[in-house]
């Protein structure tokens, strides 16, 4: 540790010089769907909460659409050559929305105390951490037990939101009264939440980045019906439809309207990856030949074009092409019903029906399940659709009560954060719909997944993950379907809204409206 030589990473003082002069002022109306259960980002991590509270809270870093870290609450940072010590220099003059000064002690409290207790996803990264210390008010040092490459991706606002120590220390976090009026350091302050109607945020006049934010206020509008959300955009009532807020077949109609723009960017950090869990424990799906037959039977290109209106990319394996360390050097499963039938004949499939559990997230997913049923019927697989609601789906998948079940998961920029959890045997545990639900057990690969997570250089990791992908794709532990794309639809006079890997979640910080 004495020979520590620091490597300095990108230190951009602010955003790159803009081509146009930004204009200040104005209000943005953004649809939020469904209504978040709460806004305290350290306690609630569902999608809508991340979108609204990403303006209120901040973390140490932000990420470009290429997943390059950028300054946020940290103005600069260094990682030691052995990959064990992460040192962050914090911004000067940052205050909480209630006027209290923000210091390194808040960061230590958030990461080491608060989130360790409340944030399951961060907890798995914190397992690699030896200590978190604040040598002075503007410096935070994370020391790891062993190198953990993906750790640099853990400083995203939904992953490690920095919460105020002076409000939460020593209280019962879940019932703290201040949860109703969240206090952060972000560019917008919480003003009002009319339950069932809207959440109102106002500009943080004391924001520490000179000239930001440009917008005066944001209204997050709660509109429960998908058709009504489309109408709200058409009539000019809202300016932004974040990804997934209207049904896919409405997207072409809305984007063809005059003065309407759309982008598929802003999801790189999440890289939503859709597949079907195939129950590896019992029934026909426990046979590898059957699982390969399923892959050949599916016409994924058709689903992408018809069900998803051309949005998305057919997945080649467990890692999304948007996530670091993706490799396309794998067996490609094209739509080949004859091959599927051969494989079924080879295994001696006796027509035992399989239960397919669709994802209860609206029409698109229902149609997708029907397309899958048709594809599988074509090659002679008997399918029963087993529809349920969200709570029922959670229960059935987490109790392994299914044969094939639709799902999609976020990857969080790195295979060690969002991919390996679905394939290593140590993650076979009932009660969670996010781990190795299919029950895939391959000890040789487990070792490789674990080794790849703790290699020091990116080049080593690249090679290791390429090897893993090549191998696992032949096993078909799950049926990979699509890398989903959720276009953000907005009026073209809204500028610079989607500039980071989490898009609308922290986009309003630099967004502005052209008058």
């Amino acid at each position: 540790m004495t020979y520590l030589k620091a490597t300095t990473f990108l230190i951009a003082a602010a955003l790159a010089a803009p081509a146009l002069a930004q204009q200040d002022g104005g209000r943005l109306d953004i649809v939020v769907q469904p209504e978040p259960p709460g806004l305290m980002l350290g306690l609630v991590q569902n999608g809508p909460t991340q979108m609204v509270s990403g303006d209120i809270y901040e973390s140490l870093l932000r990420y470009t659409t290429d997943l390059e870290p950028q300054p946020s609450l940290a103005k600069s940072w260094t990682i030691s050559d052995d990959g064990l010590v992460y040192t962050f220099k914090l911004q000067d003059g940052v205050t909480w929305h209630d006027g209290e000064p923000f210091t390194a002690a808040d960061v230590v409290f958030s990461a080491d105390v608060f989130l360790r207790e409340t944030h399951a996803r961060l907890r798995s990264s914190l397992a690699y951490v030896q200590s978190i210390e604040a040598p002075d008010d503007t410096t935070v040092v994370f020391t790891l037990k062993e190198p953990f490459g993906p750790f640099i991706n853990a400083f995203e606002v939904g992953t490690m939101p920095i919460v105020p120590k002076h409000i939460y220390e020593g209280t019962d976090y879940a019932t703290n009264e201040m949860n109703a009026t969240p206090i952060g350091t972000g560019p917008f302050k919480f003003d009002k939440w009319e339950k069932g109607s809207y959440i109102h945020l106002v500009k943080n006049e004391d924001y520490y980045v000179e000239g930001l934010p440009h917008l005066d206020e944001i209204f997050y509008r709660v509109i429960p019906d998908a058709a009504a959300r489309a109408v709200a955009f058409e009539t000019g009532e809202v300016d932004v439809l974040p990804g997934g807020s209207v049904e896919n077949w409405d997207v072409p109609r809305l984007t063809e309207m005059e003065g309407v723009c759309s982008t598929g960017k802003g999801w790189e950090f999440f890289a939503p990856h859709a597949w079907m869990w195939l129950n590896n424990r019992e029934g026909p799906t426990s046979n590898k030949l059957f699982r390969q037959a399923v892959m050949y039977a599916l016409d994924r290109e058709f689903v992408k074009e018809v069900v998803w209106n051309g949005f998305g990319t057919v997945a080649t394996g467990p890692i999304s092409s948007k996530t670091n360390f993706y490799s396309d050097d794998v067996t490609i499963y094209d739509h080949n019903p004859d091959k599927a039938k051969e494989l079924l004949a080879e295994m001696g499939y006796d027509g035992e029906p399989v239960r397919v559990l669709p994802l209860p997230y609206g029409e698109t997913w229902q149609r997708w399940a029907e397309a899958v049923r048709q594809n599988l019927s074509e090659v002679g697989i008997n399918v029963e659709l087993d529809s349920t609601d969200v709570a029922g789906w959670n229960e059935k998948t987490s109790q392994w009560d299914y044969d094939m079940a639709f799902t999609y998961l976020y990857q969080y920029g790195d295979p060690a954060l969002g991919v390996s959890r679905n394939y290593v045997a140590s993650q076979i545990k009932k009660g969670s719909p996010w781990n190795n639900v299919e029950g895939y057990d391959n000890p040789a690969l487990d070792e490789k997944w674990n080794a790849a997570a703790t290699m020091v250089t990116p080049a080593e990791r690249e090679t290791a993950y390429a090897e893993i992908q090549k191998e696992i794709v032949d096993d078909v532990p799950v049926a990979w379907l699509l890398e989903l794309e959720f276009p953000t639809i907005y009026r073209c006079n809204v500028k610079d809204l989607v500039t980071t890997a989490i898009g609308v979640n922290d986009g309003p910080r630099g967004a502005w409206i052209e008058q």
Partner: protein
Amino acid sequence: MQIAIAIFSRLVKAALTLLAIAVLNFFLVHAAPGDPAVVLAGEAGAADEAMIEQLRERFGLDQPFHVQLGKYVWGIVQFDLGYSFRQGAPVSQLIAERLPATLLLTMTAFGISLACGIALGVAAAARVGKASDTMLTTLALLFYATPLYWLALMAVLVFSVWLGWLPGFGYETVGANYTGLTRLLDILKHLILPALTLGLFFMSVYMRMTRASMLEVSQLDFVKTARAKGLSGPAIRRRHILRNAILPVVTLAGLQAGQLVGGAVLTETVFAWPGIGRLMFESLAARDYNTILGVFIVSAAMVILFNIITDLVYRIVDPRIGATA
């Protein structure tokens, strides 16, 4: 005095009924697959056993079923609807926030449907067999048969997308900060489409019922007597026929009034009306047990209350009916 005793005994029975409903609902809600901890963990995008256990413990779901039930019923007896762990607020507060919007919508719809339904029914009965009667009954049948959500979507399409006359959804103009009369007018403008959509169905029910009942009563002997006395047509209709024909309409209105709290889920969803029906639906999806049960109890109390009121109204409309009947 007799009526006071009658009301008191009804209230006692009502309280017991409510308690029974609470227990029954408790069983029902817990019988659905999934629980709030799993849903919350599911939404977080990652979960470990520690998290689920922690949540279950906080929600009290780690305790035996009969203990949970006992605690809940004990709370109800003390008028405590419990706490929504999902939303981090007492259930009574969540319901109180949403109740005014729902009551405004449903009562307006109720008023419109009752007033227009009876008026049109009387009018149709007076012109029985004529073209205007046929037109009215056809329209009524149409509204009766059309699904509510379709009607709602068409109303939005025509009046707010094409014509731009009325706002298509919401409770008021967001961020306008209107006060006083301007705010009232703004809310009224937002109220028109959902209230009409919701009201049309019951309006046609009332109209058809009033018409049928009027026609039936007008065949009775006392109407002939009144006519023989030389009374005018409108006077007979108002004082003799309508007074006797209205009873079935009152019964039906009592039933509809009972649904004032929970009966507008679809309308509230399509028109983004921040009411209690949506709260119930969303809580159901999230298995937020205490909130669902709270809404159920308030709805049940409403049904019971309006049953009592209906019985009282019977007495006024037809003095032959005793309060204890």
